[in-house]
């Protein structure tokens, strides 16, 4: 800690090259954007429950007298667009890859920092202008981008096609380019760190699943993001220089969809794989039992990543893409469900004959598993091309994506943040508050998103400001109101989490090195870890999940603890004096 004291405040907290500080910067900014994205969701759902009605307090504040304190019709597509954009590009990806990735990779691989600390600094500071651009788009008179988070051409190309397609869309394109570059820089850093800087004895197949997931996620980012960047540049030129790439007529409208989904389907895995890794670690730790099927779990992630590059057409079954191509994409999509199923079964296998401690991180990880199952299974319906003719662009898809990204990724984030909070800040979050937050969130989450499948089966399209215009959907207002009420409760429950988080930062119980009695390397150093993480780089003797091992009396066996007579790490001599057992 003495070294840090010598650095100025700016070098220590603002332009720090320390991966832990950068991770926390990502954490706090992402939480800010989660709040903004959530507020947009509340506005959206309020409109769906009570369309074109004056909203007390918020209405006059946001929409003003000019529009009669009512949401103007052009704002609804903007709400939809910005909710999706912010939650995906400014919350989930930054908090999983940016915050957890940055904080955990060097700690869990036994490295002193990332391979390229200054590049890491750049990856955060590339995000900052992106934050500013996307926030400033709310202040533009024509409003923020409103062509959906997918920004399909030509709505996003023609400046006068929608109010948001003017300045707002330009800001959207520019900020996403920066986000993409930041992700890419981060990803190259992560891959290099994981491949090059592992502690002695830490073979790839001794890495915790979180690291495996972040590793493969980074590979997806490296190969997929540049295609999005390329497509965004073409879109930018179409909008500013009048090039004709995605223009109707000479250009190819559908090309945008191909390029966008070539990135954005892998991006769905970029958003879920790290959460899968977190869930694996948390479930194993709190089951006090080795992860069931470690290698199949790793191979499943590889399979998901590989297949992830050849399924993107399933977003385009009714887009005018050739239906013959639809058949191949449907088949590959069915196949990508296999590794997801394997992962689920292995999580269940981990619980089997475990000794399950129901603490807040564990509950959230279990919520991840149970909701990911619904998300995955609901995907099979829309992967079925004939059924997707009906379900495409309805609330079924909205339900599906939220079961994967809210039920999956967000519960994974809750699990991860509460699990590693003690390591990040040296204090414990309140378990009781965590359980309250979990129960309310889990129940209301299902109350909001389960009815979406019902709406979808009714054919209610997404991104529609007032579904009750249609006679066929006029009976659905009650359901929508029910969902909106549930959202209010869910939103309120997040205040419990926020309070728990910030209160525990200062007043939480002091954590100690290893509060969860976990095995992985980050728990062998102080909480929070010193500037270069480890006093001495640990030597690794075994895999990350040796819980309840018969070798020791305790129900955990840290990776760096030497036990006489057991396998020594590859190429490493056994230490002359074995460290004392236990902690």
């Amino acid at each position, binding site marked *: 800690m003495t070294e840090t004291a010598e650095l100025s405040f700016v070098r220590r907290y603002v332009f720090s090259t320390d991966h832990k500080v950068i991770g926390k910067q990502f954490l706090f900014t992402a939480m800010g954007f989660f709040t903004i994205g959530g507020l947009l969701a509340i506005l959206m759902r309020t409109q769906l429950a009570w369309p074109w009605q004056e909203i007390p307090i918020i209405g006059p504040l946001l929409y003003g007298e000019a529009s009669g304190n009512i949401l103007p019709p052009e704002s609804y597509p903007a709400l939809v667009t910005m909710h999706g954009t912010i939650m995906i590009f400014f919350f989930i990806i930054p908090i999983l890859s940016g915050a957890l990735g940055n904080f955990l990779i060097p700690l869990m691989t036994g490295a002193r920092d990332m391979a390229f600390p200054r590049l890491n600094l750049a990856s955060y500071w590339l995000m900052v202008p992106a934050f500013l651009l996307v926030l400033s788009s709310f202040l533009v008179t024509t409003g923020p981008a409103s062509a959906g988070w997918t920004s399909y051409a030509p709505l996003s190309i023609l400046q006068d096609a929608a109010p948001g397609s003017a300045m707002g869309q330009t800001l959207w394109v520019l900020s996403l380019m920066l986000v993409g570059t930041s992700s890419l820089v981060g990803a190259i850093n992560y891959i290099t760190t994981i491949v090059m800087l592992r502690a002695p004895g830490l073979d790839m197949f001794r890495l915790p699943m979180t690291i495996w997931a972040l590793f493969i996620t980074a590979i997806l980012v490296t190969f997929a993001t540049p295609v999005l960047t390329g497509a965004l540049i073409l879109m930018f*030129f179409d909008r500013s220089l009048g090039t004709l790439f995605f223009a109707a007529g*000479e250009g190819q409208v559908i090309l945008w969809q191909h390029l966008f989904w070539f990135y954005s389907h892998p991006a769905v895995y970029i958003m879920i794989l790290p959460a899968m890794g977190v869930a694996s670690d948390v479930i194993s730790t709190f089951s006090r039992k080795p992860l069931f099927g470690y290698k199949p779990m790793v191979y499943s992630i590889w399979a998901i990543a590989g297949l992830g590059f050849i399924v993107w057409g399933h977003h385009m079954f009714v887009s005018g893409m050739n239906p013959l191509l639809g058949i191949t994409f449907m088949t590959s999509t069915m196949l990508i469900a296999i590794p997801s199923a394997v992962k689920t079964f292995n999580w269940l296998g981990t619980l089997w004959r475990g000794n399950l401690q129901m603490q807040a991180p564990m509950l959230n990880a279990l919520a991840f598993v149970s909701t990911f199952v619904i998300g995955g299974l609901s995907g099979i319906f829309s992967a079925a091309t004939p059924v997707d003719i009906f379900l495409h662009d309805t609330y079924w898809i909205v339900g599906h994506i939220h079961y994967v990204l809210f039920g999956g990724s967000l519960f994974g984030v809750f699990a991860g943040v509460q699990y590693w909070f003690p390591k990040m800040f040296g204090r414990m979050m309140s378990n009781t508050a965590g359980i309250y937050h979990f129960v309310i969130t889990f129940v209301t989450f299902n109350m909001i998103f389960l009815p979406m499948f019902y709406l979808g089966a009714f054919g209610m399209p997404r991104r529609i400001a007032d579904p009750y215009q249609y006679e066929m959907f006029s009976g659905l207002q009650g359901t929508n109101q029910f969902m909106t009420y549930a959202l209010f409760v869910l939103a309120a429950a997040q205040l419990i989490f926020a309070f728990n988080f910030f209160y525990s930062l200062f007043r939480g119980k002091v954590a100690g090195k290893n509060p969860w009695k976990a095995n992985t390397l980050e728990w062998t150093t102080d909480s929070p870890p010193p500037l270069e993480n480890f006093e001495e780089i640990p030597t690794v003797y075994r895999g990350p999940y040796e819980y309840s091992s018969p070798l020791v009396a305790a129900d955990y066996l840290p990776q760096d603890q030497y036990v006489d007579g057991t396998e020594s790490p590859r190429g490493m001599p056994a230490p002359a004096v074995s460290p004392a057992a236990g902690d």
Partner: protein
Amino acid sequence: MNPMPGVGTMKFAMWLFLASEALFFAALISAYVLLRLTSPSWPDVSELLNVPLVALNTSLLLISSVTMVYGFASIEDGKQSRLRLYLIATAVIGTVFVSIQAVEWAQLIGEGVTASNSVFGSTFYVLTGFHGLHVLIGILFLVLTIFRSYRGRYSQAEHGGVELMGLYWHFVDIVWIFLFTIIYLI
């Protein structure tokens, strides 16, 4: 512990970066190929474009790859002044390449081909433009490398920077090999 002796972290990361760059150009080339195949009014490139001039330019870029790789070989042998000579030659040839491209652009604009009046123009300027931008960035880094070599930063034992420079430069060359073929010859 370095699990892969001999592969430096910088070189590893450079290859990853180049892999991602390949995908970036793939997006642009994908647009080019698709628009060309479906365009009802693609011009006859052999008449519109100055193929002999660009063929000369292509040879220049290939030669610059040779000077670059000889620069690398020189520092492997510890020959500082030859390293500088080759790096300077590479930068100069690169500059000539970009200049000739600028001349070509000027000619085309003179003939009324712009980025916004045909898909040919859109794809042509964007593809050659982004390649040219990569060459320009390469020249900037070459200048930096030359500067650093004058400061004595490279030696027979330690010359990773020159190697990275070379990898990038040759990658840009590879991109041009494909662009030249698909834009000018096919």
